[in-house]
């Protein structure tokens, strides 16, 4: 089990010594049981750090933010940022390294092991508890969660309330870290693509019915894009205007922003948006599942990425985020790549 006290101790120490500029971790929110991302620079505040099954966020997104901030600063403080990473999050670090977006020295990784479980799916939890309001959720031994509600505490088997991504997780232990908390426990994942396979098993007609309904709901709040640590482009295909404007950019050039996707939240535009997003993440998505978690309309976005992950694995034997030195999926090929679909 991850000992929170150890984590706090290390955090205090690295802040005190000035080894890191600040630490990105989890802290208790103002209301409810869901922790919030915390940015801690005062060693005394390290006390606020928390670690529990509701630490769902992939904090590596904020490394991207930091990187962007630094670029604008005249005298940037280039000390590393301490960041708490779960297994999945650490894979995101590897992808950012692979894409040379960050250097290994930019981060000091405080790894946490998910051991036998993972993080909770808020919706599943609410369903299981039938409306009881959760106050606190903690890891327990033997793959259970200890849930405290307004009416008392109870043990719940983690698998009942675990986020889907954790059920199909390939990295319950960080793949890259500077210090790690918790044990490395081998966990067998028998069906890493089961969620995708359930969709694939549908007839083509039913698949379309499913996706039409789901993607019709999209209001294009772009939370799925915004939460993704891989979505760090300065300009996005959905932006209505070019951000890359120079003093000599002509009005015509500014107007030339390609409208691959119109602003109308219509089905066709939503599909192009979501498929483009998925393609953009081909060989990059590390399945932290954040896109799906944050979607206010509950669109199962993760399926699209997972499908991509599955094809990359099956067709090209490519796995994301385990090796920062491998060439990326779409900038490499093998002679034996499948081509039976090509006439």
């Amino acid at each position: 089990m991850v000992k929170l006290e150890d984590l706090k101790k290390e955090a205090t120490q690295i802040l005190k010594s000035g080894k890191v500029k600040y630490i990105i971790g989890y802290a208790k929110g103002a209301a409810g049981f869901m922790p919030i991302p915390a940015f801690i620079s005062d060693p005394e505040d390290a006390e606020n750090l928390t670690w529990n099954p509701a630490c769902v966020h992939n904090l590596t997104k904020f490394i991207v933010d930091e990187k962007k901030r630094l670029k604008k600063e005249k005298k940037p403080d280039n000390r590393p940022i301490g960041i708490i990473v779960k297994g999945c999050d650490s894979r995101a670090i590897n992808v950012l390294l692979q894409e040379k977006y960050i250097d290994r020295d930019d981060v000091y990784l405080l790894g946490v092991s998910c051991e036998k479980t993972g993080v909770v799916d808020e919706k599943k939890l609410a369903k299981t508890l039938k409306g009881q309001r959760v106050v606190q959720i903690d890891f327990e031994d033997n793959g259970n969660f200890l849930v405290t509600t307004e009416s008392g505490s109870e043990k719940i088997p983690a698998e009942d309330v675990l986020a889907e991504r954790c059920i199909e997780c390939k990295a319950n232990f960080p793949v890259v870290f500077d210090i790690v908390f918790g044990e490395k426990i081998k966990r067998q994942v028998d069906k890493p693509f089961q969620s995708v396979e359930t969709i694939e098993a549908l007839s083509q007609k039913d698949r379309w019915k499913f996706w039409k309904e789901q993607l019709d709901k999209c209001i294009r709040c772009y939370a799925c894009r915004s939460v993704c640590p891989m979505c760090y482009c300065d300009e996005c295909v959905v932006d209505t205007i070019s951000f890359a404007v120079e003093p000599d950019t002509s009005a015509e050039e500014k107007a030339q922003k390609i409208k691959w996707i119109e602003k109308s939240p219509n089905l066709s535009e939503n599909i192009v948006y979501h498929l483009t997003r998925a393609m953009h993440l081909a060989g990059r998505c590390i399945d932290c599942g954040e896109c799906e978690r944050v979607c206010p309309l509950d669109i199962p976005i993760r399926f699209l990425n997972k499908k991509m992950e599955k094809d990359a694995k099956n067709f090209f034997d490519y796995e994301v985020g385990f090796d920062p030195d491998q060439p990326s999926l779409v900038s490499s090929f093998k002679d034996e790549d499948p081509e039976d679909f090509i006439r």
Partner: protein
Amino acid sequence: MKKKTGVFVCHCGINIAGTVDVKKVTKDLAKHPGVEHSEDYIYMCSDPGQNLIIDSIKEKGLDKVVVACCSPTLHEMTFRNAAKSAGINEFQCEIANIREQCSWVHKDMDKATDKATRITRSAVERVQGNESLEPISIPVTRRALVIGGGIAGIQAALDMANTGYEVVLVERSPSIGGHMIQLSETFPTLDCSQCILTPKMVEVSKHPKIKLLTYSEVQDVSGYVGNFKVKILKKPTYVDPEKCTLCDECVRVCPVVTSNEFDLGLTGRRAIYIPFPQAIPATYTLDIKNCPGLLPIACGKCADVCDPEAIDYDMKPEIIEEDVGAIVIATGFDLYEKENLSEYGYGKYPDVLDGLQFERLCSASGPTQGKILRPSDHKEPKEVVFIQCAGSRDPELHCAYCSKICCMYTAKHAMLYKHHVHDGQAYIFYIDIRSGGKGYEEFVQRAVEEDGVIYLRGKVAKIFEEKGKVKVWGVDTLSGKDIEIDADMVVLATAMRPSDGAEDLAKKLKIALDKDGFLAEAHPKLKPVESVTAGIFLAGAAQAPKDIPEVVAQASGAAAKAIAILSQERLFHSPNVAKVNLNLCTGCGMCVDVCPYEAVSLKDGKAEVNEVLCEGCGTCQATCLRAAIEVKNLTPAQVHEMITASLGG
């Protein structure tokens, strides 16, 4: 800014107008946004047609032009030149292919007209996004590099040097001459190979424009057409050719005997040696691999006896850097490995030889002074079996390709054998005889008719030694009979393969290999001497098996191609190259990974395109996650508009 595009629709007589309602296309395009002028004409490529375009540009102030006509491969240049002569940038002219891709392949007039309209609209949308570009100009280093000093390299080097350009000729062995210098006589004329080659070798060594670097290897090549930078490793020979008087004293005292590669192991040589008497440069080489040691303490005998003090144990490898504008690769061939042909007892039985060994046996300068004696007991063989396609044309076990020259040289071998051993009998096992070439078929006939060579169509099943004979079991597929020959000697027409190190060299030069490992030409028909990389040309058997006249012809072809570059002060390169939007680039380097030409590199964390190397393929464009790199005049924005125009309406 309002665009003023002119659309010119060609009838091509009835070639287009027969299927496409040209008037309708013209009328519909007149209404297309941005189109100022739309006109049709019977033959747009004719002088009056071109003048019509030029006049319209001038009169209506058009700034962009689309010509709807035949394939751009035919008249793109024509119309771009016309546009240029009317005062607009040539890249403001695009072609809509409504002949090959429309009128010639459809019958329904309405549908073909609709399609032609869409194709033309799409071209209009494209041209409206074009920027005016100027060809990229590159200064040319007017010298050439030739890699390989066989007949191909020699010929190419001489041709270029004789035209007046400096040539650096690099040969990895101690002497130039290649395999040709090992041959005895050449088919179909049976003239002496050494006699015709040595004058050329001497010419190379004396040529003021040729810098000969033997015992040297190309280590690294960077740059691009017109401006290559080459690093050459010159290995130490430990003998100063200037001082050496060729007295041969050193050889006499050298205690080491090793296999002589010039005679393919049929004789031995010393650790210090001259490859063959006519070697160019005419000097000795100390073979460090076989020398007991460079310290005088280890041996030092050769240095002791060398009066002119030509031997220098302290000689070091040297890196020579050369700037050249063009490169000819003539690395030649090697024979298919012995180990791969064990089924013929090759490498196992001393009297089973390969073709080159047999050449040495026939050669007056060879191990037997031109007498054909078999290696095992130095007796004259009375029955000799020649086996063609040893390793060739055998996709299952060996090489799938035909080595091309074996039919002819086997006929030659059999003939030479008969000329040496009048009472001997030559048998040739063959699959079929390929004797395409001037005088070749007659040559084969002569072997059969005058020299009584017995051709057996079939394959050899087994070869084994028994009682001093090499027994050959085979089948004559014409008669269906099993054949057993108690031969004294077997000669294999071993397959040719690309020479050792060709693959390595191809990597250094960033040129492609074909599936058999030979250097790949840019186009099998139209660009047989060009590699896929501009400025690098191919000559000789490095590209494919071929005989001497073909090699010489290709070498001259490659030289001519190289001269075409060297003769210019500047080269021009298509400006349809990739450009980076630095604002969007995050420096992930995926474009660098995918670029087939290494034209993209990372500089200060951003991608940078070397416009001279870039061929504008756009693979980077599709790969870039940030839309930060795009190819000029075929940008995603343009393609987007083209898609819209193709489908819209």
